[in-house]
């Protein structure tokens, strides 16, 4: 087989001490709106806002991530095709990455959100920096109590 890393990257269950701490895949929001390359900004913006989102992930039929639309892109010209409006090829992370590692990277690179994908690029969900920061804060508080 391709090894443990491939199993973990697919978001499959594991056992052990590491699994007691939430990781990127646990916090990634599965309900993030998705869209295709051939849609227009207006329809995706409407769909996202109806769900209370200011972001959407651009995927193909197999949910492989092509790009990301954050608030700036969603506010661009309504008639523009998503393939021209999106941020292509965003940095993606595997579900097993620790929250501390994610937080450092997202803060350092000023990322408000990052797609979490399997090793073959399929979307697991969108990880929000605010969710990671809150989870890390709680974890540190719990550690102090012990």
């Amino acid at each position, binding site marked *: *087989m*391709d*090894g*443990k*890393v*491939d*199993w*973990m990257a*697919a978001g*499959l*269950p*594991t*056992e*052990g*001490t*590491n*699994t007691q701490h939430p990781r990127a895949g646990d916090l990634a929001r599965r309900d993030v709106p998705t869209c295709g390359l051939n849609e227009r900004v207006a329809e995706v913006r409407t769909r996202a806002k109806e769900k209370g989102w200011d972001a959407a992930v651009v995927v193909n039929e197999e949910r492989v991530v092509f790009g990301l639309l954050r608030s700036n892109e969603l506010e661009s010209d309504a008639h523009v095709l998503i393939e021209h409006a999106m941020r292509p090829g965003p940095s993606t992370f595997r579900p*097993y990455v620790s929250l501390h590692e994610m937080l450092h990277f997202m803060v350092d690179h000023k990322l408000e959100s990052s797609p979490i994908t399997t090793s073959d690029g399929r979307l697991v969900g969108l990880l929000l920096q605010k969710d990671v920061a809150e989870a890390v804060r709680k974890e540190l508080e719990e550690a102090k109590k012990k």
Partner: protein
Amino acid sequence: MTREIRRDEVRKLVDAGAQLVEVLPSPEYEEEHLPGAIHVPLRRIEAQANDVLDHDRAVIVYCWDTA
């Protein structure tokens, strides 16, 4: 007979009763391993295999990656 398999086949074989064996050092196994995997470090596999493995069931051995 040994052969290389992918994770989908791992799941099928485990469901059918195959034994999963992680050969990485103890700290890595304790931190994280596949569900139900037993631990036999690589350097001890020849000495321990007969004692810990069922000869009548398939055995899937894995490490960190394919490298």
